[in-house]
């Protein structure tokens, strides 16, 4: 190994640290370092060939991971389905089996009628109250919606960036709860044709030109769209 590479190795592998002050940052940077990734790959490769003492534990953790991934897949599809149609997610309560538990739990129950995996999950994990992980609660659902929404928005913004040129359109109206909504639409080139896409609603920004201008610039700066060259 060349000396440069030796020097660039993180202290975590080499001499260590004298306190825990920056433990989180160091661990994070180590996790993404080439050495760590190489080591994990080598570890897994050897594991398959040679087997190891905690093989049972490893298999179990793999199984659990697979289990929760399948649960998550089903929740995500249900969320996508409901959001596409603009339906309400929640109902009056969050009880499995209740007719008033809203579209989200309702559709999950419907799927469970024909999907043994979900049926079993709901039967064993559902209705156990807070403190028990079942990934069916409204908190997790909202978190998922946020993550998915952010992903969609990031995708739009990155497409606008790759188009380089864009134009903006703003308009505002009052919504049902009498909050003023300022909407922003961007038009850009997608592949070989122009596309217009809604990007955001900004609540209560005011009707004066200055206020709308500030809101627009704030959004563009935040998403790095106001640079002179993209």
């Amino acid at each position, binding site marked *: 190994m060349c000396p440069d590479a030796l020097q660039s190795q993180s202290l975590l592998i080499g001499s260590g640290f004298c306190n825990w002050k920056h433990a989180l940052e160091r661990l994070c940077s180590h996790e993404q370092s080439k050495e760590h990734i190489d080591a994990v790959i080598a570890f897994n490769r050897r594991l398959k060939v040679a087997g190891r003492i905690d093989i049972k534990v490893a298999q179990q953790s793999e199984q659990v991971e697979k289990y929760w991934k399948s649960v998550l897949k089903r929740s995500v599809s249900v969320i996508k389905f409901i*959001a596409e149609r*603009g339906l*309400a997610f929640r109902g009056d309560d969050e009880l499995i089996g209740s007719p008033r538990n809203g579209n989200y739990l309702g559709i999950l129950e419907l799927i469970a009628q024909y999907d043994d995996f979900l049926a079993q999950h709901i039967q064993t994990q559902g209705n156990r109250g807070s403190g028990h992980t079942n990934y069916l609660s409204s908190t997790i659902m*909202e978190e998922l*919606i*946020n993550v*998915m*929404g*952010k992903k*969609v*928005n990031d995708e739009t913004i990155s497409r606008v960036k790759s*188009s*380089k*040129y*864009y*134009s*903006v*359109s*703003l*308009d505002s*109206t009052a*919504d*049902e*709860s009498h909050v003023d*909504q300022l*909407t*922003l*639409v961007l*038009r*850009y*080139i997608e*592949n*070989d*044709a*122009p*596309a*217009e*896409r*809604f990007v*955001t*609603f900004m*609540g209560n920004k005011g*009707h*004066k*030109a*200055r206020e*709308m*201008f500030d809101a*627009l*610039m704030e959004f*563009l700066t935040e998403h790095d*769209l*106001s*640079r*002179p*060259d*993209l």
Partner: protein
Amino acid sequence: MTCRGQTYDNASAMSGIYNGLQAKVLEVNGVATWIPCTAHSLNLVGKNAAECCRSAVNFFDILEKLYVFFTNFTRRHQVLTDVLNASLTLKRVTTTRWSCRADATKALKLGYHQIKGALQQISDDVEEKACVRCEAEGLVTRLNQLETGIYTVFWNDILQRVDATNRSLQSTKLDLNTAVATLTSLKDFVSSKRDSFEGYEREGEELCGSSVYVESTTRQKRRSVRLEAVDYGHGEETQFNPSLRFKVESFLPVIDQFTASLHQRLQAYELLAGRFGCFGCLSTLSPEELTTAAKTLIGTYPDDLDHSFADELCHFAKFADIFKDDEPSGNISTEQFLYKLIINKGVQDTFPNVAIALRMYLVLMVTNCSAERSFSKLKLIENRLRTSMTQLKEDWSV
């Protein structure tokens, strides 16, 4: 900023030339040209025309009254739906939704006799209340007037075209030159109707079954013959006959108001249309004209286009000429076709500046219908029963 265009409705907070939003954006980014929304502009033009004279206001008042009369009570509505074709409906006249005026005049024109019949039936019905019968009778009288007949035919013609134009303006793929061309053709269509008053008069007569103007049956106002000191030397006022008076006071002003205000609105697009106009007619322009057009573009966008653009454009004109037979009819505009051509043939490296100019042209937004559409979606998601959503959740759901 690489923002090259901004589109808002024509509200003064947006469009103000000194303190409007567009002026503020232009301060930080001089090339983000402002385009007033074409759909909103057309709407305003129509509104101006419909409010330019008393008889026009009167006519739309009849439409509104008919709607209110028939829809307020289920029994009256039943009478109407029994006689009227299912595809026709009376609509409320609103200033924001022009298509409903078009729908309402269409229903009135195609179902004139049926609507009149329904009104007659209600006014003859002894079981109805006296005031209702009176109202129905009043409406029948107005439908029997020649003025109403002429206006029904005339406004139906105009509004069907306005409505069709409005629909095409709402497309998200629309680009500037196409929008301007549709609006200009609409203007020419309307002004061509200036000479066809006699035709409308004839059709109106057939529709309402009367050939005399209200004016000729009412008592003429007598002018005072007393001479006044300042009246000396004045000749007698020209007396129009009723037909000519209707033409001069109610027919021509509508057309003139419509074409004049559309012309005024169209001027807002002339700057941009002139700037990018060369792409629409590449094959017909001479190399000198292309060079001039290219120089204008370079002057406007010095940061994006370099000096080789002029030669490149002349070269590209020849290149596009070879593939001009591939251009599909309908669907996409010439500029979109040219850009597709560059991408599909993989010649971005040969014509980098042309590609940039076309991109800048294609991102120009001519309507803010998408923004309005997002409101419709918002209304569906956040409705009367679901008002407690957080801002963030709304964003993601839309």
